[in-house]
Each structure stands twice: as structure tokens, then as C-alpha cells.
């Protein structure tokens, strides 16, 4: 992690290691399933099997690239609870660091889809009045997610300020 995205005087909190397994599974499922639809349409309906092969080849490339990057993606995620704001960093190719002041949070949301649940993971999302804030942390232990939610709600209440 280089300097641009390091939090000042704090160390990043990392996601649950099970997030890596979840990423592996989704990597194996999503691209192949999604690209198989046009591939099968091309192959069965139009008899263009070479085109189907291209779609599947593409799927294979995506799976390989994502698989290779899983470790780095996981390491790129991080969050820090500071005194007045929460920092979240993510992204390997397109990297970002977002800082949300507690006083600006309107909503803290914890969500867990069926796949996430099967890995015992949850996602925490912060909402402010701005739609661009886009601050969510995936791959948290449900206990950690609940703790974070309660903590953020409490801090948000203490520092809330009107628009």
C-alpha cells in the first residue's frame, strides 16, 4: 500500500479471510454463467460455434485474471475508524479512498445475500445525503458488521449535523 492511500497514523483494518473464498466462488460462477448465455444462443440457435468459442474463451480469460488478482483485491480493501470519520480504501486498478465524517451519515445498512450468508459474511454500507459517497465494506464477519453498525450509529448520533 503506497502513501497516497494510507490512513494518517492508523493501520488498516482488514476484511475476513473468508472473503477470499467468496471471491473465488463468485469468480468461478459469474463470468462463465453470464457469457454462456450468448455463447449458447450463438451456438445452438445460429450454429455459429466459433463465436460461442470466443465467448467461452473470454470467460476463461476473465476468470484467470480475476483469480490472479483475488489476493491483491483482498489486500486492497481496508477501513479505519478515526475519531471523527471513517476511511475506506479499495481497488487494484482503479483505486479509491473515501472518508465519511460520522456527522454526515444518514443511514448505516448491513446486508447479507445468500452467497455471503453461506460464507458467514456481511456488507456494511454507509449512506450520506450524497449519492456519490459510495462507501461500503464487503466481507465482514457478521459480529464485526453488527459492532461496526452500532458503533457508527452511536457516533453518527453524537456528531450529527443538519444539512
Amino acid at each position, binding site marked *: 500500500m503506497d*502513501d*497516497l*492511500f494510507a490512513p*494518517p497514523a492508523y493501520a488498516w483494518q482488514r476484511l475476513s479471510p473468508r472473503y477470499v473464498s467468496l471471491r473465488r466462488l463468485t469468480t468461478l460462477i459469474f463470468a462463465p454463467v453470464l457469457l454462456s448465455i450468448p455463447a449458447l444462443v450463438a451456438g445452438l440457435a445460429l450454429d455459429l460455434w466459433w463465436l460461442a468459442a470466443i465467448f467461452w474463451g473470454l470467460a476463461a480469460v476473465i476468470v484467470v485474471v480475476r483469480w490472479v488478482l483475488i489476493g491483491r483485491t483482498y489486500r486492497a480493501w481496508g477501513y479505519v475508524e478515526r475519531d*471523527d*470519520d471513517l476511511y475506506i480504501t479499495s481497488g487494484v*486498478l*482503479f*483505486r*479509491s*479512498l*473515501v*472518508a*465519511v*465524517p460520522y*456527522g*454526515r*451519515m*444518514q*443511514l*448505516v*445498512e*448491513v*446486508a*447479507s445475500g445468500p452467497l455471503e*450468508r*453461506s460464507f*458467514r459474511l*456481511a456488507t456494511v454500507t454507509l449512506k*450520506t*445525503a*450524497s*449519492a*456519490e*459517497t*459510495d*462507501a461500503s465494506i464487503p466481507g465482514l464477519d*457478521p459480529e464485526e*458488521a*453488527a459492532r461496526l*453498525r*452500532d458503533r*457508527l*450509529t452511536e457516533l*453518527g*448520533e453524537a456528531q*450529527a*449535523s*443538519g*444539512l
Partner: protein
Amino acid sequence: MSQPPVPTTAVPGGDDRAPEDAAPVVPDAPVVKQTEWPHPLTPFIRGWLVLVAVVVGFGPRLVNPDEREGLASLGLVWILVGVLVICLLAAAAGFVSWRFTRFVIDDEELRIETGVLFKTSRKVAFERIQSVDIIQPFAARLFGLGELRIEAGAGDSGLRLRYLSRTKAARLRDYLLARAHGSTARLADSDDALAPDVLFDAGVADRTLVTVTPQALVGSFLTSTEFLVPLLVTVGFAVVAAATGIGVVALGGIVPMVLGVFSLVSRRVIAMFHFTLAESSRGLRVTRGLTNLTSQSVPVDRIQGVRLCQPVLWKPFGWWRVDVDIVGYGSRDSENNGGEATSVLLPVATPAQVRVAMSRVLPGFAVEQIATHGVPRRARWFRWFDWWTLRYGWDERAIVTEHGWLVHERHVVPHAKTQSVRIEQGPLQRRLRLADVHVDTPKGPVHSVARQLDEATARELALTQLDRARAARAAARVTADPAAEVRPESEDERRSADAVLAELGTGRDRLLGEGGESQVFALDDDRVLRLYRGVHGEDQPLSPVVDQLRGLYGFWERTRAPGDRALQLPLVLDAGTSHGRTWTVDRRFGGESLAAWLPTADLAGRRAALSSMLDAAEAMARLPLPVAGFARLVGEGAPQTYPSLVELLQAMLAGPTTRSHAHLTRDVPDVAGVWDRMVRDLARRTVTPTLVHGDFCAPNVYVSPPSPGSPDEAPRVTGVGDFSPHTLQADSLMDLTGAVAFLELETYEGAVADSEWLLGQAVQRYGPEVARWIGVYRRYFGFYFSDTAEVEPRTYAWCLRQLDGA
């Protein structure tokens, strides 16, 4: 495996638009109150609107030969019958909906009931109202009717009342806005009717700030990029079609372009026609529209940011377009012609008009004075088309970002409105060690992004921006609190104020201005009523300050030399207490406040007025003195005399510097040394005492612009008001210093340059020695106003500048 989904938690207080206010209440609840129907002409107008829709929808088909065949076979009579039936049905539906719409707007509540089978009753708390707009579609305008639209929170579709008579709509609007501002006005009080002008819907009490002429509007439209680009594309298609001889190619391109241009004309020209920005006691108001007339209120305290933009062809004219982000309005980003509340503050404006508007939407901000920085040259690999236009900058109040060449955009976001801060970096930017910093604001036209900064700069900007935002939020909380204490008039205050107003023959509709201590109402052309806040016992004497000021003003009125009477001074004509309230009747000043006038004036006018401010200072120095020697004239224990100037001024500084001691030791290097030098300098000053206003600044001075009859006359300072406990018998150079130095606190563009120029004038008039003494008195005022750190950060920052580098 079977974790239950964890519930979502809302942060209370983070969202101040709780939904329960708009919740339906039980319709069968006993209704005691008289409810009202909208205007009985409503169904006809809705029928008329349907007729227009039908004509617009089917008209072109009747003209189009291909389709006329099909329709004509039906026979014209049948078509007309069909149209008639549709209109009748619409009118019938309109009648039913009208019959079952009832509303109550009175001193207690705002409630609207609708629905035939499923009845809904919506009640909105007055404090939740964000804006109240009056929309007059063309048909409704013909009958003098208008729709009242009330916005109460984001995600709420808004309450609509159609249609009401214009006068009633305007009256209800003023009443609702008054209640929304926390005032306890009563419906009966807001009886002043709308100006009966068909084109301009401004209320009687409004003061017009900016009017956009049709020439400017059409001219700006014709030279705007968003019009010229589709036009050029269309021409390009036409040329290609003509050259190749394939008409179809052209049609495929031209038809959507022409449609696009039509919609643009309706949004940018027809909807913005006769655009007027006005100011009333209830905030800003926009009136606009050629066919549909819209009058909307602009809730200034909910503005989250401002965007200024300038298409490249507007540069020679100096035109700018101003949009604002208003929280809760973002969902209606598209400014359609339906008269929805929009984000346009000014569709086209000259720099002077922009300054006037900015001084109202961001009061106290010096946006023009913020220094901006460019980006590293290597950004050209990434933004080859506009890298030289990328700029960013900030001061203690706001952040500014600029970009764009074809359309130059400048985004201003007050620090207090920062929602979150992001650093973003893509793979190419990473190679070049560049990054973007986003300052997020609620949905709307403002997107504050400092693009392509050096990595280190980006990080610095993002982290310090968070600090600035935190400080600004804290400051906003501090300043919001005292206001909250002052604003809601208690039941006692309201009743006693009404009694006093009635007794003295004025009313709430004639409020001229209000501050923390008093409210001022017009009595007639020559007199105003100043009503001090707070209710006290019946037999309490007048407060000493009121008495002392009355005595001082009366003394001057009696003893002033007749030759010096050109400068108007305040005069208390009558004072008293009744119904437990202290009031005075003051002489009304001619002219207008210099602070409000300066942003609207041109350079020559400003400098003429400022130069005459020095004359006014001289005239004040000639005023007769009520006591002998150096003295404090107003306040507890006054008049109090002192043996020397330095002792008087040290006594004046004792209070403020005790309060600001901690701040000054933190913020001023060697503050003790600065103080010692100032005291030493003051001890050396030998003057005969003259009257010193003590706060001789633009807001306390009245200017008379040249009358329309004789435009060659120069604007001139004609009055000085608001004498206060700052008023002394001391050194006349103190007011000269005030005139020069306090001007830096004005926020119009060029205020600092004007201040420097005025200093030059003073030196020309009174010799070079004056500059040195102004430097000394700058430090005096720096100490005197230094206890403002918490309440007025800008004034405090000014004080620090006076004390630094001394």
C-alpha cells in the same frame, strides 16, 4: 449458515426529514374545522388542458397527408365528437377530483384531503416546509388562477393545490413561508395582495435583484454550446446529404436534432423568459416563464453548492449561468417546462449580477478572492483537451474547482456542506502519479472534483478538506444555536408586539429589518419603529443604552452647526414602554445601506461613494461633544471620561482581550510584543478628542445613488447610523481606519482593491503620516473585535491579519 439478515439501522438526526410528518391520518377523525375547496373553475381548466393535449397530439396527423387518409375516412364530425367526449370526460373527472379535494390552511395546521374512494389526508408540519411555489399554466393564467405546490422533504412528491386564485395563492404562500421560517405569523396578518400584473408575479414587498432581458436570454441561447453543437451536427448532416444526394441519411440525423433543439428552446428560452430574481423578507424568489408562469422560492439555507458556467462564446460578453444544489431538489434535475422547481438561479447574468446573487446565496463568502492553483504539466497526457483549465483552491469557508474549455465550469462548495471526501486514481493516472479529489455533495448540478492533482497535493487537499469541513460544521452549530434562541417569538412576545404595533399604527407586513436586539418596522416615509426584543415588567424604565443614544442624538440635533446638516444622523423622536416592550420611534434614513449597494455599483460609482465616506468621517469629527475630554459615551456607567487617549483605549480593550486571551496566545506569534508596541504608539499620539463612531463600516452607512433624473451626479454617503457602545470621544483617525480597514470584510469582488485605493486617498488628503497611524489603529481594532472567534470566524480571521505582521 442460517444467519438472519441483520436489520438496517437509521441514524437519528442524520436525516432531518422524518417521514412520519406526511403520514396519512385517519380520515374518519371528527372534523370540526371548516375545510375549503380549490377554486370552482378548476375542472374547466383541467378540461382545457386535455383539449390542448389532444390538439397537440393529433394536430400534426391531420396535417400529415399519409395519416390524414386514415383519419379522414372517419369523417371530421366524428373526430370532433371524439375530442368533445374526451374533453367532457376530463372535465367530469376534474370535477369529481375538485369536489373531493378539500384543504385547511390556518394558524394551526396545513392539511389536504383528496380521494373519492380511498381518501387520503396529508398533514404537514409547518417547520418541514422547504419551499412553496406558485405555478400558472397558460390556461390557468387566463383565468387568474394558479397552482400552489408545497415541498416538504426529499422523496416526497410534494403537495399540490390546484387551482386557487392568484391572490389567495400568493397570500397562502407568504403565510406558509413565514411559518416555515419559524415565525408565528398569523394568516390574517399576511393580507397584502399580489401586484396585479399579469407578466410579473413579484409580490409587493419584493426587491428585484436581477432581471434577465429577453435580448440577453435569446442572445445567450444562440451563442450557447448546447445549442450550437447540435446545430453544427445538423448542418454537417445536411451537407453530407447534399453532397452524396442521399436524403435519408440526412433525415436520420436531422429529425432527432431538430426535436432536441425544440426541447432546448422550451427549457432554456420559454421557461426562462422574464426571469426575475427578487428578495423579500422571506428569502429569495424566482419568477419566470413565457407561457407557464412559475414563481418559486429558493430556500437559501438548504443550498449545498453553486455552479457557475460559461460556454466559450459567452466570454466576450462576460456572461455566466448560475445553478445551485438544493437538498431534496436533486431528483428533479431536468428543468422541464412543466414548471417544476429547478436548480437555475440565473440563466444568464453579467459578472455584477452574479456577484449580487452570490452575495445572497453564499452570504459572507469571498468566493472571488479565493486563490486557485493549476495542475502539473504532466496532466496534459491525460487531459490533452483541457488540462490548462483545471484549477482548484480554497479558503476558510469554501472550496472552488474549475474545469472545461468549451464550457468553463466553476463549482463552489461551502466546507460546512461537504458530505464526504474521496481520492480516486485510475491505472493511467497511477503511472503519472496523478489523482482526483472528489468533494461529494447531494444530488444536483454541482460536482466538485479537483482533477489530476499531484499525488502528494491530492492527499494533502483531501485530508485538510476533512479538517476544514469539521471546523465549518462546528462553527455552523455554534452560530445556529444563538439564532435558534432568538428566532421563535414566544407567545408573550408575539401578543405584546402585536399590541404595540397596533397602538403605533403599523403592522408585521412593514418589517424593514431585524437583528439580535431589535426589529425595525416602517411607520411612514419619515419614521420607523424600533421594537426591542424581550418582554419586561410594565413599570421598568427604559434601558440605559436606549436612553443614552436618545440623549446623544437629541444633543446633536440641537447643537449641530447648520452647515453640517447634510450628513443625516439618527434621531429618536419618541421612546417608551408599553405592553411590557421597549420601543423607540426613529427618524427614517434616506438612501440605502452602503454594504448592500456596493456589490451592485460599478468601479467609478463605488469609488465616488467611498471617497465621500471620508467626508462623512470629517463631518462626524466636527460634531459637538457632550462632555469634555476623552470619553466613552454609551453603555453602563457612561459617559465616563479618561485623562488620556491611551487610557481610554486600554479600558475599551480590557473586556474583549480578556475573552479572547486564549485564542490570541494560540494564533498570534508574540502577541504580548504586538500589544506593548501598540500601547507605546498610542501613548505617543497627541490629539484633541473628537467624536468617534467606533464601527464606521459599510453596513452602518447610508448611500444615496444618483437620482434617475440626473445620472451624472455622483453617489454620495448621506447618513451614518447605528451608534452604539463602540462610540467614543477619541481620535478621528479611528473612523478613518474603520472606513479603510473594515472594507476588507465586504465580500464583493474588488473590496480589497477598493480598500487599498481608499488608503491612498486618505494619504493624499491628510499626508503620509496617516498611513502609520492607520496601521496602529488596525491593531487596536484587531484586539477590539478579537472575541469573535466562535461566532464570526471571518471577523476573527480579519483580526488576526491586523495583528500579524505588525
